[in-house]
């Protein structure tokens, strides 16, 4: 069941990235749903709010999830991995800083955040999206 949820989301992200860009441009003129999607540094469209939610991880995990310190990078991690790590941390009574942070997020939010990081390329440029 859980497995199904995230793989559905993964499929959605792929669908979005491959076909929305090419086919759905007309809608955005009207300020419709598309203007509320976000584009990642790798040029992939992710669902509304995913980038903003994921950006709350950047303070520690680096801009776009590309860490510049000993803290883990999240860019390019699989959705599956991020989701299961977050769920694990949520469930644990262990009290590291990140265990508390994980407890703040609903499963739906975690899926959005994971979708975002999975969509970001691992490349080291955190700046002006010239990486494609």
């Amino acid at each position, binding site marked *: 069941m859980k497995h199904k949820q995230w793989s559905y989301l993964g499929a959605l992200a792929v669908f979005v990235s491959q076909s929305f860009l090419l086919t759905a441009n007309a809608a955005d*003129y009207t*300020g419709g749903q598309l*203007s509320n999607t976000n584009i990642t540094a790798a*040029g992939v469209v992710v669902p509304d709010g995913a980038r903003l939610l994921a950006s709350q991880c*950047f*303070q520690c995990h680096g801009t776009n999830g590309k860490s510049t310190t000993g803290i883990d990078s999240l860019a390019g991690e699989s959705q599956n991995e991020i989701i299961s790590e977050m769920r694990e941390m949520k469930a644990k009574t262990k009290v590291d800083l990140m*265990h508390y942070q994980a407890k*703040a*997020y609903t499963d739906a939010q975690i899926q959005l955040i994971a979708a975002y990081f999975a969509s970001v390329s691992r490349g080291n440029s955190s700046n*002006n999206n010239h990486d494609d």
Partner: protein
Amino acid sequence: MNDISRRQFLKTLGLSLGAAALPISFAKAAVRPRVIVVGGGFAGATTAKYLRLWSNNTVDVTLVEPNAVYYSPILSNLILNGQKQLNQLGFKYDTLAQKYGITVTRSTVSSINSASRTVNLANGKTLGYERLILAPGIQFKAINGLDSNTILHAWQSGDQVQRLRQQIQMIPSSGTYVLSIPKAPYRCPPGPYERACVVADYLKRNKPGAKVVVLDSNPDITVERDTFNAAFTRTYAGIVEYVPNTILQSVDSAKKVAVTSFGDYRADVLNVIPPHQAGSIVLKSGLGNSSSGDWANVNPLSYESTAIQGIHIIGDSQGTGQPKAGHIANAEAKVCADAVLRLLSGSQPFAAPMTNSACYSPISSTTASWLTAAFAYDPASQTMQLVPASYGASSGASTSNYKKMFEWANSLFGDTFA
């Protein structure tokens, strides 16, 4: 980015040829929207960076900041016990200017004309904006007799911290350092207790017999009570005296005497952190509409002022009730940047933002503790609310936390200034 996605992105922002969809103000005004950010601290620097990054440089961003170098208050207490040098905590704006194409203007915004959507700078220039973001941090309230040039606060980093370090180095053995803590809300809830600890650490190692007296306006240690109580009563037993409910009434700056609701305290070094309020540009522009009149009420979906349209306030000056701290100032800055880009393209801010806070506190020159929390938008009250399960602290201080403190700080510095 390829052509299709670039075109898509411009359209996403409402910036391409489709004039029918352009917000009215846009069609009439400049083709490229102009956003002015006032103040280059954790809040302002972050929002300027993400406005450029997330608009793919289609929005013009001017950052107005009087100082060439920003000195981080985060980690600045470590200067007091000799574990950091001030220059290690300095950040220039070159990276933001060069890497992200932010126009950095070295000046102070002296006034705002919200009707004409312009700001006046101390250097005589006038700049126009479609959206204005204020991130000026804090200013201190006056206290009778307090001369903040000799009785230092050292609460905005920079020169004052350096000078407080020198004052503390001059304390005679058996001398007394007295710290006055203002009523909450003040910036960095654990910060003053952390300061008491690192000063005690220095005195313990260098000035046997010297004492730390903590005069707290609050009824108890405001955060991480167990950690700081253990530090005061065990690690620094016989050195730290903690006195709650002690409200500073006036100061004899020449004699270094704190006159309080509990009587007079004479010090060799008196360190007064006065009560705070929003940066002066916020208050003098009529944006200080919180019930106390000290902070700017904003819509937490966009950080737009509830008093004046088109002006957003982030960081320590805003009055959402979230802690006044640099990590969460960075968090608010991203919510604001995302919302401003959506508003500029005629759509609505994301309806369910989250923010988070983290503070690491050095307790000695080898140990640290931490405190964290996350906040979620609550549509019923239209406020940011603490997520209770996310609120937690380390169990005491440890050497591994001390190492993690630098990883955390360096990451935050990077996400903000680089």
